[in-house]
């Protein structure tokens, strides 16, 4: 037998059929393209949302190798609620944790006051006022666009100094450097020593840059005049052991607060992993739903391709018979019909993924949406579509090829 390859001719013939029966080709490919498009878009939005959540948490928490201790019981569990009236956590608790829980290497404390008034240069507004220990910036990994953090010496001295967020700097000082300038916040005059680099929006969407940080002792003794704290950030020596450390902190604080079951805790400990996992769970539910929409479209598209190709295998019996009469082998016919389905699937995958990527890019740039193309998913969906074409096209093609030439020609009489 000859070594003639059946594929080049089959591809040319299939392409001609696809080009000259555009309506049918469109009917075959449209659902597949929609499937790829749906998967590309939904995963892009899902992926973008997931990365967005992670990024905003990172901005808010600064670091991931920490545990957060907040006052208030488990019923109030959630993100930090600074300024709440719960007063069950104090510097003594934090000192005890630092002294007895070995995995806690360092701890920073924060007192917070929301809606603190700010005045400067005749402008006034409100900000979030934080009283934080000097190690707060290092633990968070904050970077500064100007100046430097205040020191523990400032803290001991109850110094009237402040580190301000980039929004505050822009609002009250414009283009001028705020370093060394005065700012009135919470009824106290402070001198600006540092400006934080922008952090963007937090998980709730609010700006993390409209803040003023002053030394912890300054708020404790001069501004808020209270001893309780709203947040302790515990830096872990070994972040992988966060769960064990959380348990140790829990039992220590229960002991110090004399809490025994059935009394509920008056504090709670959170890990960034737990917070993100909770967001990611919502996110993954949506993604699963979206994925199935796309998957369903691909499955339906496969059925449509198989159906139309089976119809073709019957409707084009005269063509099959004629081609066999002029010398086409069974493999020639198989290859021709199979390539029709494969090429349509390939075109559908390309068009669907192309539109998906284009829409994602357009959405990301025009609407500043938190969406991002997931190449593994887009390429995976395209490959899946191609596989569907390969499978859905094979059986009709085999049927067309199995037709005996004499029978195929007789039906046309």
């Amino acid at each position, binding site marked *: 037998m000859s070594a003639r390859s059946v594929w080049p001719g089959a591809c040319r013939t299939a392409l001609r059929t696809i080009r000259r029966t555009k309506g049918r080709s469109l009917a075959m490919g449209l659902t597949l393209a929609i499937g790829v498009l749906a998967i590309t878009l939904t995963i892009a939005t899902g992926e973008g949302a997931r990365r967005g959540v992670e990024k905003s948490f990172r901005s808010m928490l600064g670091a991931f190798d920490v545990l957060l201790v907040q006052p208030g019981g488990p019923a109030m569990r959630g993100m930090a609620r600074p300024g709440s009236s719960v007063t069950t956590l104090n510097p003594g608790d934090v000192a005890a944790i630092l002294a007895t829980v070995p995995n806690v290497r360092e701890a920073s404390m924060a007192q917070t006051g929301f809606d603190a008034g700010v005045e400067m240069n005749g402008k006034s507004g409100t900000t979030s006022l934080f009283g934080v220990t000097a190690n707060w910036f290092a633990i968070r990994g904050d970077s500064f666009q100007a100046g430097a953090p205040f020191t523990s010496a400032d803290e001991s001295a109850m110094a009237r100094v402040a580190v301000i967020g980039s929004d505050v700097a822009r609002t009250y000082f414009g283009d001028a450097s705020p370093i060394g300038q005065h700012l009135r916040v919470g009824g106290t005059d402070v001198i600006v020593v540092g400006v934080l680099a922008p952090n963007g929006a937090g998980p709730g969407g609010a700006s993390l840059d409209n803040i003023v940080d002053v030394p912890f002792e300054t708020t404790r003794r001069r501004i808020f005049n209270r001893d309780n704290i709203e947040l302790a950030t515990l830096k872990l020596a070994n972040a992988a052991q966060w769960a064990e450390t959380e348990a140790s902190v829990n039992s220590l604080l229960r002991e110090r607060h004399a809490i025994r079951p059935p009394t509920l805790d008056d504090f709670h400990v959170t890990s960034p992993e737990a917070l993100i996992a909770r967001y990611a769970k919502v996110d993954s539910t949506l993604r699963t739903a979206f994925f199935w929409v796309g998957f369903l479209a691909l499955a339906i598209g496969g059925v449509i391709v198989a159906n139309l190709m089976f119809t073709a295998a019957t409707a084009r019996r005269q063509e099959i018979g004629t081609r066999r009469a002029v010398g086409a*082998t*069974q493999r020639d016919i198989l290859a021709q019909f199979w390539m029709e389905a494969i090429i349509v699937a390939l075109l559908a995958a390309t068009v669907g993924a192309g539109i998906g990527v284009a829409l994602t890019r357009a959405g990301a740039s025009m609407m500043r949406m938190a969406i991002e193309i997931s190449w593994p998913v887009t390429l995976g969906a395209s490959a899946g579509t191609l596989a569907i074409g390969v499978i859905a096209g094979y059986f009709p093609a085999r049927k067309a090829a199995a037709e005996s030439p004499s029978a195929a020609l007789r039906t046309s009489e």
Partner: protein
Amino acid sequence: MISLEHVKKSYGGRERPVAALSDVSLELGKGEFVAIVGASGSGKTTLLQILGALDLPSEGSYVLNGQRVDGLDDDELSALRNRTIGFVFQSFNLLPRASALENVLTPGLYSDTPPTRADAELVMRQVGMLHRSSHMPSEMSGGEQQRIAIARALVMRPQLLLADEPTGNLDAATGDQIMNVLSELHRSGLTIVLVTHDPVVASRAERTITIRDGRIASDERRLARQEAVQ
């Protein structure tokens, strides 16, 4: 050139086989122009399909150009049809979405040595259709479509041309023109077998084989008759 011996062909399952050909033995010489006639259902189309290697006999032997055809596998039969046999059909069987030229070149898709565009244009000129090469079948008359079909049958330079009711879908005048084309091909040395139920068409051939109930009922050579008259 062609030798059939005790060829039988039956269709259908084992329970109720239908005999299409009962016992046909036949010799055809090179360059003959033969008409196979008979009523519908007589088995004449089955005979043509066996001659054309589209189907194999259930029993008996078929030798074409000294080669046993029964016993060839499907790929070998395809190659034989591609190289040695040209087909012309009653309903032309052009590919509707291909131009005249593309239709003529179709057999080349299935060949190691495909004909060139010049080869195709040569046979299209031979059937008087070169001016229509870029037209689609839907833009051509029946007679024109059949001429393109004949060009397709000729493009591989076959040794045997088989025509199944080639004038069956054409009016008398057009059918006559198609028969002129076939007669011309015969004069140039091509072996032609055509199936028809039309005595006028059959009279254009040199030899008429009548099939009845799957058997050869008569086999007449016009040349022999003419000698008898003389």
